[in-house]
């Protein structure tokens, strides 16, 4: 159970550090000093080692006399605030931070300093990889505005009056599956040719049975491990550019939210396997060219598991509200691909439908008149 909250503070002035997506460095909010993630990691590693040593000495003392010592950095008395919530003390201002048990990075609601629940990133919960944010909040807002453009059925009031209720950069936990899929597929296929004999059109159809067997290798099929994130949104913002995958470091977290996974790799696996099966079928079917019709007769797929990696991938989440309904948009924090469902104006839909139909009918009538 994570009990400690960390926020990275500037080694020069003690101000809060945030990860800058533009500079790909940690920047101090107050003095503007910039640090690489490595510098901060090394600095805090040394600091943690010293703290651990002090903590060990304290533990020994407590063991000998438990009533003697209390520390404000400890997990707050009273334990869990509610069943799935946790309360932490902010290392900067001492205020209580209450958040979801899966929250791994957040910010203090009082002093605003970015805070990391380090316990959610340690041991078995430590991600293997991370893709740092490349796009910032302003770019996300602009992408949403661009997304509204050209949507003829979007109610005008929606784009004019709606306000972004919340925008947050979230590192979403993803499982990345490697593996192979053995595929055995058989098809019914036919090829026809037609010719004319006198007053008859003759069609000869040759029927075939096609057998295709092979193996398809996949790498890093992503499945989000967060039950809070809608699957359709997380699927739709794919793909991420894996060439920018970096070994995980908490130094990328300041300034963004992060969750640890709450759907484990075993439960997420069926989604990855299902996608791999369909792609394997496509790969087999792609070799059945030259026929007029091809239908699957039978298919069998056997997955061979490879590695599963745990990664945090950057996603901008934008919430808007209109007519009492919430609209969620998500944007790939690396590539800028934005998805979301927009409301449809019934009036505009009908007007457009009638307009196009009337124009086509007028055109057709004119052609008839000139025939």
């Amino acid at each position, binding site marked *: 159970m994570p009990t400690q909250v960390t926020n990275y503070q500037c080694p020069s002035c003690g101000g809060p550090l945030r990860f800058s997506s533009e500079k790909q460095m940690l920047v101090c909010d107050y003095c503007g000093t910039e640090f690489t993630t490595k510098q901060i990691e090394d600095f805090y590693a040394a600091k943690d080692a010293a703290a651990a040593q002090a903590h060990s000495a304290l533990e020994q003392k407590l063991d000998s006399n438990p009533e003697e010592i209390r520390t404000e950095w400890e997990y707050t008395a009273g334990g869990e605030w509610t069943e799935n919530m946790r309360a932490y003390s902010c290392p900067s201002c001492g205020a209580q931070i209450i958040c979801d048990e899966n929250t791994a990075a957040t910010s203090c609601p009082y002093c605003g300093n970015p805070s990391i629940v380090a316990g959610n990133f340690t041991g078995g919960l430590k991600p293997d990889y991370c893709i740092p944010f490349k796009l910032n909040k302003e770019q996300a807002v602009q992408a949403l505005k661009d997304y509204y453009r050209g949507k003829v059925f979007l109610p005008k009031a929606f784009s004019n009056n709606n306000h972004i209720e919340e925008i947050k950069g979230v590192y979403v936990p993803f499982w990345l599956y490697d593996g192979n899929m053995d595929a055995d597929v058989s098809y019914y296929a036919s090829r026809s040719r037609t010719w004319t004999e006198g007053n008859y059109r003759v069609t000869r159809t040759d029927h075939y049975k096609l057998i295709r067997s092979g193996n398809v290798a*996949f790498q890093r099929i992503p499945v989000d491990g967060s039950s809070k994130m809608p699957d359709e949104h997380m699927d739709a913002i*794919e793909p991420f550019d894996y060439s920018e995958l970096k070994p995980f470091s908490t130094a990328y977290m300041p300034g963004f939210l992060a969750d640890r996974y709450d759907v484990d790799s075993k439960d997420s696996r069926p989604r990855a396997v299902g996608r791999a099966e369909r792609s394997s079928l496509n790969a087999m079917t792609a070799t059945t060219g030259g026929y007029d019709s091809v239908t699957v007769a039978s298919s069998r797929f056997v997955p061979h598991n490879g590695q599963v990696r745990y990664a945090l991938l950057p996603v901008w989440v934008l919430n808007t509200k209109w007519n009492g309904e919430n609209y969620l948009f998500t944007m790939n924090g690396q590539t800028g691909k934005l*998805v979301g469902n927009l409301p449809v104006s019934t009036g505009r839909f009908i007007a457009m439908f009638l307009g196009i139909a009337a124009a086509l009918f007028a055109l*057709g009538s004119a052609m008839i008149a000139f025939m």
Partner: protein
Amino acid sequence: MKRLICILLTVVLFAGVFTVSAENLMTSNCIYDVSDVLTQSDWETLNSESIELSNKYRCGVYVVLIPYISEYSTFTESVENAAQDIYVRNWLGYGTGYDGVVLLIETSSGKCALASSGARGRYIFNTDALKQFDPSIVSDINASNYSGAISLFIAECRELFEYEEKNGTAYLYNAADPQNDDSNLSGDMLTDCVYDYAGILTADQKSMLEKTAKDISERHRFGVYIYIVDDFTDINSSYDVGDACESVYVDNGFGYGSANRDGIMLFMSMDERDYATYRTYGKGYYSFTEYGLYELEERFLNPFRRNDWYSGFQNYLNYCDYLLDLAEKGTPLDYGDDDDGGYYPPVTPERESYGPLYITTGVFSVIISLVICLILRARMKTAQVKTQANDYIIRNGIRMHDTRDIFTHSTESRTRIDTEPRSSGGHSSGGGHSYSSFSGSHGGGHSGKF
């Protein structure tokens, strides 16, 4: 500007009038002496005589003298074919029907041949008639007495014209010599005119039709037949009802006269409701013009559409009788100056066809509009679950272990093509019917659906 238009219209009008006049009068020469073997006076005499004869009987009489056929035609193996070729290539013939006859003489070898063209030309100068030409023509040619041969040829033509004018029918070998009449109508070879292999007529109906058909055939010396089958494809594996019809006519030796086999036949195939009409060249084409054939079909197709077979056949026989009567009076039923090469039934404006067209346009407009709107609407919802992982297949990550294509069997299907009227052969109109024209080696006709 208006004045200019008036002048232009007047010029066009006069040109049209003169063009029409020119079509009806033979003004060009009739004797073409390329070999230059006739004296000027002989040529003038013979040429004016031919022109006068041609204009009087509305059928061109031509003589072509050339040194070598090979220089003027590619049909060198047959003088008859060369004569036909030269006739057609040089646009010989009277009127728009290009009716006429030509005597082709190759002066270097003394070879000669006769050829006739156009409906009236083929009618008057039919095979029987051409056989009756005086053999002295050939003798004179061989003796290089070209003017004598041409005079004789013109005289023979005049005789045939006068025969047709006097008797109301062209010269026919059988008619001229009844002793030699080998018509199948009176012979043993074929005695019936009505063949009902589909069994759509009662015995009484068949008997009545047979009697009527025979009577008409004998009176006009022209076979009138009805032939009904279940499926025409059974006949010589034909795939075309017109071909099957001609095949029946020729293979059964139908027709009147030993040479021309004159006649007309209505052929019906009941399975797919196909019909074909077929008439022979010569008198058949003369009596049953494209227009006449179209009118004839109008008479029997309407009852057939009601499955009233007997009435349809009665109408067919009666109208055949009527058309043959007209032809024998020298006025075959025809449409204007139609040359029998492609009559187009009059087209009435198809106002009523616009309604369905507008409805179809409306339906398509609505469907297309709906499709466009649904596509645009789909763009409003972009958050969708992915079902494939194509982006994550490793490069060269697809390895095939087994790829086999095993042939199992074949199937074959045949679908009848609804015969559409050929654009050059005819087309349907408001109250008319659809048909296709066809022609074979002995005759031609129409085919279609009833």
